[in-house]
């Protein structure tokens, strides 16, 4: 009898845990919802606040776009390295995670109009004076985010293979590794660098001037309904016209990062 009760209790607990787990992951994406993928770990673009809500620049942008094109919007967070897989398999409509338009990506995806213009920037230790541009990286170790376009950028410049590129899952971990002396520099976008240096309190600074001007946009799979991309582009255009982009940008950054 005791065993029976114990068995029932165990099965009951298992069933309850499974029911809660299944419920928490239930994907209630309504037919007409736009599903936007992001890492959820890239402050202030996409991150969770103290209450556990997903917030940030990208979230605000898409809430606004969705309102203008009259669609509901849902956000899906996943590891950055998994985002393009989710896009390819149709589980999300697009990625909103500061995706830079590159030639390699253009071969596979259709991009919306750009919404962020920026410069790629080196971050180095405060006492480092010799790293100021890509040329001075030769013989050094530089960290980039896995799946980001910075590795491509370095490879395109460094045809002789003189720069050692280390890829990181996490941007913050790469910055920390500069202070540990494991790498000499990190290449990422200037603004994220500035903010991370300020907020993390790590002993870092910007190395030289921005390396290259780039722009970010939303990637769609090639067979995506062109009407959707057109609608998004119209919303982007309208948000530039009436200053919404500037307003959202200044909510999260000291400068307007959407400025052309």
């Amino acid at each position, binding site marked *: 009898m005791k065993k029976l009760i114990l068995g029932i209790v165990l099965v009951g607990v298992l069933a309850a845990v499974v029911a809660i787990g299944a419920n*928490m992951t239930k994907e209630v994406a309504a037919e007409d919802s736009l599903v936007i993928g992001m890492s959820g770990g890239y*402050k202030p673009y996409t991150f*969770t606040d103290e209450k556990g809500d997903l917030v940030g620049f990208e979230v605000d942008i898409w809430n606004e776009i969705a309102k203008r094109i009259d669609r509901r919007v849902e956000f899906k*967070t*996943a590891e950055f390295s998994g985002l393009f*897989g989710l896009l390819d*398999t149709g589980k999300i409509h697009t990625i909103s995670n500061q995706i830079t338009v590159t030639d390699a990506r253009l071969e596979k995806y259709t991009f919306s109009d750009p919404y962020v213009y920026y410069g790629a920037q080196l971050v180095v230790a405060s006492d480092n004076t010799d790293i100021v541009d890509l040329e001075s990286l030769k013989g050094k170790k530089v960290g980039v985010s896995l799946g980001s376009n910075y590795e491509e950028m370095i490879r395109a410049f460094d045809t002789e293979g003189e720069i050692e590129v280390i890829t990181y899952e996490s941007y913050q971990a790469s910055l920390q590794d500069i202070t540990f002396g494991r790498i000499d520099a990190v290449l990422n976008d200037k603004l994220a660098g500035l903010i991370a240096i300020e907020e993390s309190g790590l002993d870092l600074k910007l190395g030289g001037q921005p390396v290259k001007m780039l722009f970010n946009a939303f990637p769609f799979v090639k067979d995506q309904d062109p009407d959707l991309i057109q609608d998004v582009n119209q919303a982007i255009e309208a948000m530039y016209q009436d200053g919404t982009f500037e307003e959202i940008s200044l909510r999260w950054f000291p400068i307007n990062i959407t400025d052309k």
Partner: protein
Amino acid sequence: MLGFDYKYLIEVMPIIMRALPITLSIGCLAMVFGLALGLVVTFMRRSRNHLIRGTANLYVSYFRGTPLMVQLFIFFFGLPQVFPGLSTITAYPAAIIVLSINGSAYISEVLKSSIDAIDYGQYEAALSIGMSPGQAMERIILPQAFKVAVLPLGNTFINLIQGTAITFMIGLKDIMGMAKVSSAASYRFLEAFVAVGIIYWLITLIITRLINWLSYKLSKGGII
């Protein structure tokens, strides 16, 4: 700013724990399905038919020989490119399927060696008194083999629970994903990872106790 922030460690703990049902349910379901599947594979590996035996051995060899992360990536992102119908599988069942399959390979290895550990003479004796091979298995060999298997199966269960830590890659916010996301805002990675490590550790301690208790009960001849 540097140093260790104990206050944040305490704060982030309940936030990470909100994702506990996801981690636990994937781990538990994978163990249940893995056991069933592992038992089938074990019998296939004992088959006289070369094809069945070969297939089962290849299965175990592949799923033990490749990292869980590779299996998850191939199943969730790779296969839908070849079979578009598979793209309708969402992350939660996909994680359970992949972990079950992965677990079943290890479980089959445990079960196989446990069955082998029971003296073959017992099997022959059971047949000699008129039991069918199936009855001999069910009544004589498996109950004893299961006693041998309990402790190593506990290891597999612990591995499955910890294997869920990579599921944020496919967008499941398990406790590991929760730790990554919540620490991104505060830059307090060390604290969040210590917190999630403590949670995994506690789960493992609880499982270990349960398994030890089960093993003790079985050794006294109870339960089965």
